[in-house]
């Protein structure tokens, strides 16, 4: 069996699920999955793809080893919201969620890399990011507003770069919400 598999439209027309292995190459399967979501518009798919890639990359790099070795990704349109959910089990996720903050991107001269850009992207692309460590399952939910395909780029351009982060607790069973503004 391949490291990813897709179940589309089995239950609802506006929901699809993807099962991924915890591998760096899974990013390709996620991109293909998002591109195939025909219940979303092009700009909606682009926002999900950009933010989803960042979340998956962080999970694979920083939350490994994932117990069970896999990540379930679910995309759904629910009324006036679009939700992208990641379901997994990681012993380190609760600590990560507890330490969340609002760091500014910084240049790391030793590795010639910028750090922290991905989280800024997620906050600006999504309306909210909810980190939910759990006793049986860890979950991340990104919530997006619907967006028409407009040539001028749509409403996200007016959102600006001001951000606020709300960190509430961090032990298992608590929830941390990062809110784009």
């Amino acid at each position: 069996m391949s490291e990813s598999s897709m179940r589309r439209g089995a239950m609802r027309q506006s929901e699809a699920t993807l099962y991924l292995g915890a591998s760096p190459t899974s990013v390709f399967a996620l991109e293909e999955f998002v591109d195939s979501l025909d219940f979303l518009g092009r700009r909606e798919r682009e926002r999900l793809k950009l933010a989803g890639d960042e979340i998956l990359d962080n999970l694979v790099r920083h939350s490994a080893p994932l117990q069970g070795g896999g990540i379930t990704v679910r995309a759904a349109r629910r009324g006036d919201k679009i939700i992208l959910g990641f379901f997994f089990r990681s012993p380190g996720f609760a600590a990560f969620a507890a330490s969340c903050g609002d760091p500014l991107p910084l240049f790391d001269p030793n590795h010639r890399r910028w750090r922290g850009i991905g989280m800024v992207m997620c906050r600006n692309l999504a309306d909210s990011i909810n980190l939910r460590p759990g006793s049986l399952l860890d979950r991340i939910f990104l919530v997006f507003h619907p967006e028409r395909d407009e040539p001028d780029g749509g409403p996200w351009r007016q959102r600006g770069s001001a951000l606020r982060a709300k960190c509430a607790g961090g032990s298992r069973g608590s929830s941390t919400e990062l809110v784009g503004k």
Partner: protein
Amino acid sequence: MTQLDVTVRREDAYDLLLVSGPVNSYTFTEFQEKVFKSVAAANVIIDMEKVTTLSSAGIGVLMAALDDAGAAGRKLALLRPSEIVKLALDSTGFSERFPVIQNIKEF
């Protein structure tokens, strides 16, 4: 699996990098290698019309390359970035740092 392709064309006044496919967390190292190599030696135009996604790792490469080019007194510009590239850059709040051109004559 969709592959990244980066082709470098050496012109007299600049290197033109033709990029197609995804610049993501898995492919960005190839992108980084070719961008940094060109920026170390020439003015650079990066054609991003056929880029299908741009991750934070790829944006970090562009930001570092822009800094390197500026420090060396060279120019770097993005040619015809795709809609998803523009969205990615705007989502960082750094999009105004990047010179964008629609035609090589603008360089």
